[in-house]
């Protein structure tokens, strides 16, 4: 097992929503020294002996209710893996995650039964993937995709499902008359908005956003970001926003974690990190901002 280190957030209060400690994900077979011989100091996340890939090493942070946490880093730094572990898309190698929604945060949510994981995913979490094809079922209509999330949470009334789906689509500015059309006939921005509707369908307290605007053109990007910020304020939902784009991070997030080679190299208030980056890698990121 990996020893857990404590990284405190901006507040010392115990009212955290999500507490992550020692979260580690390794692909391949590690040996005892793998974690010690990878990371930013070695400029690699591949173990020199076993060639195991350390996607995440000993990640720890707290997330508070209503807070938006940004995760920034280059390609392959482990950003997406982090939210996928938290959304149960992949299994972690080690570490603990405590979430208020499961037994008031008393148990490690990575260790609960598959049924409870599924319940948590369907009722308490939302996810927006970079590629709409990961988050939406393209064989179902956009209304059907939202219905899936509602049905998973036990709404078996077509009238109620359609009312909820149309109000969500209206909110995310997708024309409601296109509710019964397949997402493949939609533009990329609209697909992304349908995905956001699906993610917030059950009013989850925590939503993950993985590079939501990366495939969109700049004007659509601005609209989607506006929508996310608006929804976040309106619903008071906590978010973890993954992006390699510091503009997105600046616009959406309160606090930011900088990842490199699976390690946290810097964390703190977003404004602080962007104005006065401490770690050389963060300085490089900020200075390359157009």
């Amino acid at each position, binding site marked *: 097992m990996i020893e857990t280190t404590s990284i405190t957030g901006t507040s010392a209060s115990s009212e955290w929503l999500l507490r992550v400690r020692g979260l580690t994900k390794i692909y391949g077979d590690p040996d005892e020294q793998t974690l010690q011989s990878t990371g930013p100091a070695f400029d690699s996340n591949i173990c020199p002996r076993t060639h195991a890939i350390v996607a995440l090493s000993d990640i720890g942070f707290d997330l508070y209710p209503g807070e938006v946490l940004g995760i920034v880093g280059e390609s392959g730094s482990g950003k997406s893996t982090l939210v996928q572990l938290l959304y149960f898309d992949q299994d972690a190698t080690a570490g603990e995650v405590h979430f208020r929604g499961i037994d008031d945060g008393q148990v490690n949510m990575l260790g609960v039964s*598959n*049924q409870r994981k*599924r319940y948590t995913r*369907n009722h308490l979490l939302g996810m927006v993937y970079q590629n709409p094809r990961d988050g939406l*079922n393209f064989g*179902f*209509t956009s*209304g*059907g995709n939202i*219905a*899936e*999330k509602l*049905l*998973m949470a036990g709404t*078996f*009334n*077509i*009238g*109620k*499902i359609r009312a909820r789906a149309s109000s969500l689509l209206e909110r995310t500015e997708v024309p409601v008359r296109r509710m*019964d059309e397949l997402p493949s006939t939609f533009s990329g921005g609209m697909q992304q908005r349908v995905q956001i509707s699906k993610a917030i369908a059950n009013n989850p307290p925590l939503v993950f956003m993985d590079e939501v605007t990366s495939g969109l053109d700049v004007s659509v990007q601005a609209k989607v970001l506006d929508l996310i910020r608006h929804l976040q304020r309106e619903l008071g939902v906590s978010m973890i926003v993954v992006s390699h784009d510091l503009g997105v991070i600046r616009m959406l997030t309160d606090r930011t974690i900088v990842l490199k080679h699976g390690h946290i190299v810097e964390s703190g208030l977003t404004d602080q990190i962007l104005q006065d980056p401490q770690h050389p890698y963060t300085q490089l990121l900020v200075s390359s901002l157009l």
Partner: protein
Amino acid sequence: MVDNTKFKASYSYAFIDESTKKEVRRKMLKAVSIPGYQVPYSSPEMPISRGWGTGGLHLTLSLIGRTDVFKIIDQGSDASVNACSLREFVKAMTDCEVTFDTAAATLIQTRHRVPEEILTDKQILILQVPQPEILRGVERYESKTRQMHGEADYAKIWVSLYEAYVRFGTMMRGAGYPIRVNGRYIATPSPIPRWDVPNLNMAHCLYLFGAGREKRIHCIPPYTRVEPLQFEDVLFKVEEFRDIVCAASGEDRAFMDEIYDAEGTRKFVVNDSNFLDKLKTGSRPPQRLFVNPD
């Protein structure tokens, strides 16, 4: 010389060997214990093509004994080619009495229909199943569908019903309407019309479902709750034959076949051939009728 008697009989009783029968019976017992759950089984290949009733035959031949009375129907008819050949085969291999009379049979093998006549607690109905996995239409991977059953994760099949309603204004599923067995597993009733689905609920008889290609058995034991999936505001309905009477018997409360004669005139005839025979002789067998909600 001492005769080797082992190979004197060309086939064992009821064609398949005893160890296969034992395997199939054990798996049937498991299926009875977990209503609606698909139990995998193993068996050698049958001398008939897959898709022609091998799953049903595995179950029939494992269960049948010399005192059984056997009936086989194909799409409601005792007289179709498939029913006739399999009836000949079972008779030749078992010496059992065979019958057309639904009430007289102890073991009935069927394809695509449940008899109209109410079955009793002395009878077993064996249904041939082309595709045992109800979730296959929404999830192509077997490992995933097994996990979905294990965790009762049925949102996708519900979405398919929602989508059917949105696209067609009704929960269109011609045959094989999804059922929830004993409040737990969602299963296929095999491709029977919706008309027959209510007859599976709290029935007196045992329903066994055999899929020969996939080698799966599932079961609805007697007096088991079987609910067709339905929404709170959009309810399950059976086929309606409004203002339609049977051209052969004048009957209007049975599942009908639509047929055309040589002149191209459209007629309807009761689909269940034994039920029709009995109607013609003037005796109406007991029947459960489902009344559609408004």
